[in-house]
């Protein structure tokens, strides 16, 4: 979720943590995590493809951001 988009779930989780006594919480934002296995072995090509996947399917860029971590 982009920073300026309201995330009700994150807010509820944050409030619940505070109720549980975790007073140092500033805020919580909830997102999604995808593990994608690729046949592609080239790093650059992989990154480009996953970026495309993020844009075309996994995120709605009006409200969501994405971050890609490539592991070997």
């Amino acid at each position, binding site marked *: 979720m982009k920073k300026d988009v309201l995330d*009700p*779930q994150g807010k*509820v*989780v944050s409030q619940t943590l505070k109720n549980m006594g975790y007073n140092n919480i500033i805020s919580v934002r909830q997102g999604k995590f995808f593990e994608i296995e690729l046949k592609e072995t080239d790093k650059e090509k992989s990154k480009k493809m996953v970026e495309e996947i993020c844009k075309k399917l996994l995120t709605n860029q009006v409200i969501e951001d994405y971050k890609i971590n490539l592991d070997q």
Partner: protein
Amino acid sequence: MKSSVIVFPGSNCDRDIAVALEKFQITNQMVWHNESTLPKSDLIILPGGFSYGDYLRTGCIASKSRIINDVIRHAKKGGLVLGICNGFQILIETGLLPGVLLRNKKLRFLSKNVFLKVLNINNQFCLNYKKKDIIELPIAHNEGNYFASHKLLQNLEEKNLIAFKYCNEAGNIHEKFNPNGSSNNIAGILNDKKNILGMMPHPERLIDPLLSGEDGSIMFESLLKSQ
């Protein structure tokens, strides 16, 4: 007998339960989740619904409500606790019952009547059923797929803590008659002491011939008899 129905933001079967309790002359009080103490109760019911919009995991946020500390105390002292549907999910998230309830296997919200086999009648919720009774109750859920480790399932079976299993009209328990993919066709389980019952089907929805059946009434009659 005195009961308390805990009401969470997003509960939607709390009124149905209240009507059922009233019908069986159980003195009931509705208790808001943010209260810190429970009124004196013999029975606590966590109703169905979508507490907190199912945020994070079904039943998860509700399981951290202020009133839950008292519910856990009541349960640990041996007091009766019944969790129906979302209430079952909440009981699981509090750790009062083991396992987890996953998305239905076919990824669909299910709303229909199912047949159940009553497998444990040695508890205060099921006294008036007969062992191996086949009953019909409605289900209405998206996350009712009971999942547990092989070891836990074995433990539940060996200790006879499975109260209900999904079956067909003739009482056959088979994967074919499993609506949501639950391990071992489990529809409801008890804790070791059998004072806590969690179940996905809704007994409160079949308590009158006008509602097309009374198989749910038997549970409320059992609770009364247990007093």
